């Protein structure tokens, strides 16, 4: 489903461009979970952004379900994110002015495939039923991250991209959120690519790819 083939990416530096990714390749199929690990600055988040179509590669190819991201314009990549990809951020990135229920349903509505029953089930399994009428700021960090996961999975994406989703949570809450997330991803048969530098989180995933100095080892 996801094919990353020899991609390269650099950013302007003070003196010379900084090569963040130097020929990274990987594959991910539906139902698979993959941990992307590595030290800070190794290019994990950059790779995730490129896969999500939030940025463009300098060289190489990224394809999701056969669609080459390099061949798509901004609108095409936006459409892909809407329909096939789900993003879970470390900072949650909920919409603060929408209530929990609306936040959870948001991406599904955006994609035009809102399933009320599925959303309700997700809400219940995420333990958020009592909080649907609240605003995100009224929730704890763990609850907010559960809302973010619910928002992603409510749209039943083919590929879930998660950037340190438990990085802002304490270890117990993080563990519970991770378990829930893995269960739900498995249930929806989505592929999961998760950036983490937590050994514990990585070990919970099916596979792992380690990035070091912009290369997969």
């Amino acid at each position, binding site marked *: 489903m996801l094919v990353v083939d020899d991609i390269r990416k650099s950013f302007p530096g003070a003196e010379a461009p900084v090569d963040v990714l130097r020929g990274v390749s990987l594959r991910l199929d539906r139902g698979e979970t993959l941990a992307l690990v590595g030290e800070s600055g190794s290019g994990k988040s950059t790779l995730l952004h490129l896969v999500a179509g939030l940025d463009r590669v300098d060289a190489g190819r990224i394809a999701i379900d056969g669609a080459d991201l390099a061949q798509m314009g901004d609108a095409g990549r*936006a459409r892909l994110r809407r*329909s096939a990809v789900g993003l879970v951020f470390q900072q949650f990135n909920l919409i*603060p*002015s*929408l209530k929990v229920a609306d936040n959870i349903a948001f991406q599904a509505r*955006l994609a035009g495939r809102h399933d009320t029953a599925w959303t309700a089930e997700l809400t219940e399994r995420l333990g958020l039923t009592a909080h649907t009428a609240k605003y995100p700021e009224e929730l704890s960090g763990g609850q907010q991250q559960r809302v973010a996961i619910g928002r992603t999975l409510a749209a039943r994406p083919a590929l879930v991209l998660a950037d340190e989703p438990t990085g802002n949570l304490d270890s117990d809450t993080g563990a519970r959120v991770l378990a829930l997330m893995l269960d739900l991803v498995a249930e929806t048969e989505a592929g999961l690519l998760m950036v983490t530098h937590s050994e514990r989180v990585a070990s919970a995933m099916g596979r792992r790819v380690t990035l070091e100095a912009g290369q997969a080892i």
Partner: protein
Amino acid sequence: MNRAALMALVSHWRRRPLQLLTLVLGLATATALWSGVQAINAEARDSYDAAAQTVAGAGAARLVARGGQGITREDFAVLRRAGWPVTPVIEGRIDTPAGPMRVTGIDPFTLGPGMLGGAESSEATEIAYDPAFLTPPGLILAAPETARALEGGTGEGTASSDATPDKVLREAEGPERAELPPVRAVAGLAPGTLVVDLSVAARLLGNAAPTALILTGPVPDLEDHADDDRGAIGGPIGGRNGEPVGGPGGDTLADLAPGLRLQTPQGNADISRLTDSFHLNLTAFGLLAFAVGLFIVRGAVGLAFEQRRGVFRTLRALGLPLRRLLVLLLAELLILAVFAGLLGVALGWLLASALLPDVAATLRGLYGAEVAGTLTLSPAWWLSGLGVAVAGTLLAAGASLWQVARLPVLAPAQPRAWAMAGVRGAWLQAAGALALLVLALGLGLWGRGLVAGFAMLGALMLGAALCLPLILRGALRLGARGARGPVAQWFWADTGQQVPGLSLALMALLLALAANIGVGTMVASFRLTFTGWLDQRLAAELYVSSTDPAEAGAMRDWLAPRTRAILPIVSTGVTLGGRPGELYGVADDATYRDNWPILTGLSDLWDQVAAGQGVVINEQLSRAQELAPGDTLPVAGEDWQVAGVYSDYGNPLPQVLMGMDAFATRYPDITPARFGLRLPPGDAPALADALRDRYGSGVEIVDQRALKAESLRIFERTFTVTGALNVLTLSVAGFAILTSLLTLAGMRLPQLAPVWALGLTRRRLAMLELGRAVMLAALTALAALPLGLALAYVLLAVINVEAFGWRLPMHLFPLDWLRLFALACLAGAVASLWPARRIATLPPGELLKVFASER
């Protein structure tokens, strides 16, 4: 997708109702001030159009008597017999229980069908053939609103002067009272105008002679020879090559009625120019108030966009295309603009309704222009108000939309507190301010005309406003250098951080304060100058005129032993510098030498005038023709040396004073029927009574004190409108500060929480917040002072000169500045009271949340 995304965007306003209120009220206020002013202008223009069409349409020429006397029945009869299409009118003004009104007496039979009122009022002519109109007690035809105003007020009318300041010397009608006939409403007639039969007009105005003969049809070649100088000096009215102006039968006007001269509608052009200037001034003020309102809108929209940067990023990350996001944001803004615009137009209507009576009084008093005191609404006005609201919103939100369009999807989600906070933004702003100030300077040096004057004002004001954040930062840096102790250091540094967030509100305050100082200085300077000028111009204790010119000589003889001096007032219309103007004859008397408001002149100017070697001219003429003492001016076919220039506020026409002997030699037919009388002030009432006893209705007397009081009353009403707009603008700016502070208060927790945790109490923090607002308002007020004075200078030395043709000296009023400074500080304190109280009563849990989310 659209629905979900729009719901996410709009939900921001639901969570921040105060911000929404700020945006809507800011836009509504801006629209209200603008559309209110436009409503007043539109109403006034409609009234002018209606007035111009009362009799025989706007383009009708008229014949008037030389020297200002009435037209005789013989003149009329001779012209009609010779086939001239003339109809007599008697025009004047009376005081009615509903206020002063213009009376137009007509003769329906010679006027002909379809010649009364505008296109809408063909019924007016039909009613004029009604026996009720023609037979006693007659019938008044009036515009519906005028008729309504007169309803229940029928009773007595009092003839009165137009009270135009420049006319006070020459017009003084007696307080004759007469019964008003019944009133009938007719659409399309000018407001404030009462159309009656000639006989009724003669009774109401106490004047049986027609004041003009209006030409209801074409007379060949007349337009080419209007207001000809040769006509004015009593010779035959001639064509361009000396050939006489002919009527239908081949007879010339000079042959048929040598006492009459032709006046074309162009003679009204100056009134139109002055009223246009007045409306342009109003428009400029409306525009300034609109700009202040837009600063609020800009602030509210900018803040809302800044606070939603994270949401925009998330929406795009979740798959909303950029173009769709921009379209949705635009739609959101348009919805808000239409809503606020409707509210603003409604408020504007209320504002215009409240101010229109004062504007009408001003226009009537200053320019003799009739304007309805009530407002009528047109769909075009509503639409234009909405259009302005939408355009203003797009203008105010343009920069924010542009930022969103350029926002990289991976940009940091944290608000960066307004783009202006960035160094690049500050430099751009400084460059923009400099460019605008250079533009203002360039327009000041090389610009010509009223539009250039207002463009200079706009550039100056906007440039100065953009400079404000830089000035404040500089002042705060100075303050920080003198700071002693950690709290003081934090205070100055923290205040510097708040400037970007408050800068738009402070800019609005700067503009409002500067407008207040500028317009206040202009009005106060005007008042001071005008009062002195009135004292100079109205030096005579009594002004009398004989209604029967034949008796004027006898009256003068009777007055001679009873007064210190008699100053005859004689005048005629002449062409001055290609425009219709006035020529007066003045006696050689100490009154003129001691009192006349001379601006500049030769040392022996009055000797020259008395000897018939020179003339003095008004400032309007001097500026229009670039004439200075010593220059030569052609008057009535002769070249005259300009001996001096005098101020002549409020007069739309060029004017020349000539020695009485020289005048009498050139205009032997014009005999003085009006006089200014010099006598001990205490003797004036007794002499006035004696005159009335002796001459009854044959004399009209105006007391100098009454004239001055009336002129000052008109003057004060003139500036009621600007005063009201001033207050409204200042209130809007105060509101802008309040809302900015309230919004900032909600965002300041991360800045305040650490200081609170380090030991500053919430009460102390609140007090510092209060002090900060007062200090910023005070600094803004200090910056507004030079800007306001520059504004006053431009208004007095550029705008007034371009608009009216005369320049006023600028006076300074430091006490007014102090008052305004205190008001600005008070506005800052009041605006910060609520936010400060919120800080003082903030639950510690709220502050602790700041640390909790830092995990």
